[in-house]
C-alpha cells in the first residue's frame, strides 16, 4: 500500500540526498552558516522554511496560470514575504527568546535562494499536489543538513544539545571536562559551519561517486 506513487515519493526523497539543496545545489548557504551554532535555532529555522516553502509552492502553483510572466518575480516575493511575516509573528508571540536568537535571519528567509529557486523551477510548471511534495522535500533536505551541522557545532562548541549540557559542566569541571576536555571555540564561529558543510559534501560524494562533476 504505497501512500505515494513512486514518482511522487521521489519528489520528497531526492532532495534529501542525491539532489540536496545545500550539499549538491549549494543554495541557502548563508543561513546555514549563520544560525547553526545552536541546534534549537537550526530546528526552528528548518520548520520555518518547511512552512514557507510548502505553502508557498502550493500558492504559486495555484496561481501559475494567471501570473503574467513579466511580473512573476514580484508576485513570488509577495507570497514569500507574506508567509515569512506570518512565521515571524508566530515566533515573536510564542517563542520570543528564540526569535531574538534568529534575529534578522527569519526575515532573510525571503532571500533564501532555495525558495525562489523552487518557485521558479518547479511550482510555476507543476500542479499543486506535486508542488507541495517538492516544497516539503526541499525544505526537509535543507533542514536535515541544518540539523546535522547544528548538532556538531553545538556539541563540540558549547558541549550542549538544545541548550542542555551533555558533556558535563565546564566551570565545575564535571563529566568529560574533568579529564581536561575543553569546548572548541572555533565551532562557534561561522567559518566552522562552512567547514562542517564541506565535510558533509565530501562524505556524501565519496559514498556516491555519481555526484562528482566532471572536472
Amino acid at each position, binding site marked *: 500500500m504505497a501512500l505515494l506513487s513512486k514518482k511522487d515519493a521521489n519528489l520528497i526523497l531526492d532532495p534529501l540526498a542525491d539532489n540536496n539543496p545545500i550539499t549538491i545545489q549549494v543554495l541557502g548557504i548563508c543561513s546555514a552558516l549563520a544560525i547553526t551554532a545552536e541546534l534549537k535555532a537550526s530546528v526552528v529555522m528548518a520548520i520555518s522554511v518547511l512552512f514557507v516553502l510548502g505553502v508557498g509552492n502550493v500558492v504559486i502553483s495555484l496561481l501559475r496560470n494567471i501570473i503574467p510572466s513579466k511580473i512573476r518575480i514580484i508576485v513570488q516575493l509577495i507570497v514569500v514575504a507574506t508567509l515569512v511575516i506570518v512565521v515571524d509573528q508566530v515566533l515573536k508571540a510564542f517563542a520570543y527568546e528564540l526569535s531574538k536568537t534568529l534575529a534578522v535571519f527569519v526575515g532573510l528567509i525571503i532571500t533564501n535562494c532555495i525558495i525562489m529557486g523552487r518557485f521558479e523551477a518547479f511550482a510555476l510548471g507543476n500542479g499543486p499536489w506535486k508542488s507541495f511534495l517538492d516544497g516539503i522535500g526541499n525544505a526537509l533536505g535543507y533542514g536535515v543538513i541544518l540539523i546535522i551541522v547544528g548538532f556538531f557545532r553545538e556539541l563540540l562548541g558549547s558541549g550542549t544539545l538544545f541548550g542542555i549540557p551533555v558533556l558535563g559542566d565546564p566551570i565545575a569541571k564535571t563529566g568529560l571536562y574533568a579529564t*581536561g*576536555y*575543553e569546548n*572548541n*571555540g*572555533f*565551532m562557534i*564561529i561561522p567559518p566552522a559551519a562552512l*567547514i562542517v558543510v*564541506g565535510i558533509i559534501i*565530501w562524505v556524501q560524494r565519496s559514498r556516491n561517486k555519481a555526484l562528482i562533476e566532471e572536472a
Partner: protein
Amino acid sequence: MGLKEKLHTFRVKNQDKKWFPVFSGFHTFLFTPNEITHHGTHVKGADDLKRTMNTVVMSLIPCLIFGMFNTGYQHYLALGEIDAVTGGFFGSGFWTWDNFILGFWKILPLVLVSYIVGLAVEFVFCVIKGHEIEEGYLVTGMLVPLIVPVDLPLWMLAVAVVFGVVIGKEVFGGTGMNILNPALTIRAFLFFAYPTWMSGDKVWVHGAVDSAGAADAISGETVLGFLAQGNTTDLAQKYDLADMFFGFIPGSVGETSTLLILLGGLFLVFSKIASWRIMLSAVIGSLTMGLIFNGIVAAEWIPEYSKFYSLMSFEYWQHLLVGGLAFGIVFMATDPVTGSQTNRGKWIYGFLIGFMSVMIRVFNPGYPEGVFLAILLMNVFAPTIDHYVVRGNIKRRMKRLKNATIYPKVSGEVEALKTETV
C-alpha cells in the same frame, strides 16, 4: 642475497598491495629503489623532496634546542630560583643542565605528538588513495611544536594536527597541492578553538597556568602582550635589546631567538632551499609599516592615551626581534608550495606579509601576534599575485613584439613567425 636485494624483491612482488605505500615510505627513507626510468630523458638532481625537507628540519634544530633551554630558564626565572642571565649569548645561568632537562621533558612530548599524529593521518590517506607517502609532513611536524606555547595540552595539539593536515592539506590533494601552510593552519585552529591556551599572559611560561590564582602565581607575558596593555616606559627595565635578540624572553617554544632564526635563515638561503627575495622583502615590509607608525607618533597625530600608542611607538626595527615575526618570515613565508612562484611576485608577497604582520600587531590588541594571520592571508592571495605578474609579463612582451619589425624570409610565413616569437 643481502638485505638490500631482499627488500627490492619484496618491493617488486607486493606492488599492488593495499599497504604498499606504507612499506614504500619506510623503504625509500633508507634506500633508493633500483628502478630506472623506462623512457625519455630526465634531468637528475640530488635535491629531491626528502633532501629539501631534511635541510629545513636541520635549520630548525638550533631553534628547538634553544627552546628547550629557554623553557627551563623562563620557568626557573619566574619562580625566582635563578637570576637573569648576564654576559651575552653564552652568558651564565642559561645554558645549564637543569634548564635543558626541564625543557626537554616538556617539549619532547609536543614533538612526538605532532609527528605521530600527523604521520598517521598522512599514512591513512596514502593507503586510501593508493599513492606514495609524501615527505611533506617532515617539516610541518617540526614547525608545529615550535610555534605553540609550551604548556599546550597534548590532546589539543593532536586535534589541531588532524584538522590542519586533513583540512589544510589532504583535501586539496596532499603535499604540494595545498593552498594554506599546514603548520599555520594548525596554529590558527588552536588559536580560535582554544584561545585561553594560545594567548594571554599565562601560557608562555611553563607552570604559569597551574599556579594561576595561587599566592605564588607566576606570570609570563610576551613582550608584545606587555606592550598591548599600554606599558611603554618600563619595557626597557624588563627586557633589554640583547635579551630580545638572543631570545631570553617568553614566547612560543622556538620563536624567541632571533639570532638562531637568522642563522637558520642564512643556512636556508645559502643552500638555496628558501627564497631570499621573500625574506628580504618581508623584512622591508615590516620596517616600512613600523616606520609609518613611528612617524604617526612623532607627528603627534595620535594621543598618548590611545590604546594603540604603546605598540605604535615601539621602535620600528625592534618589531623584528619580538614575537614570531622573524620565525614566520624565515620558515613560514618561504614555504615554496604556498608562496608566490614568480620572482616579482615574491617581492610583492613578502612585502605584504611584513607590512600586514606589523599592522595586525598594532591595530588588533586582541591578537597580539599577527604574523600567522598575515601569512595565511597572503597564502590565499599568492596565486592571484602570480597570475597578474605573468599577465604583465605577457603584455610587455606583446608590446615589444608589436613594435618590432619582423622581416620574413618568405612572404607567406609572417603569421607563423609571429606566434613563434611570442
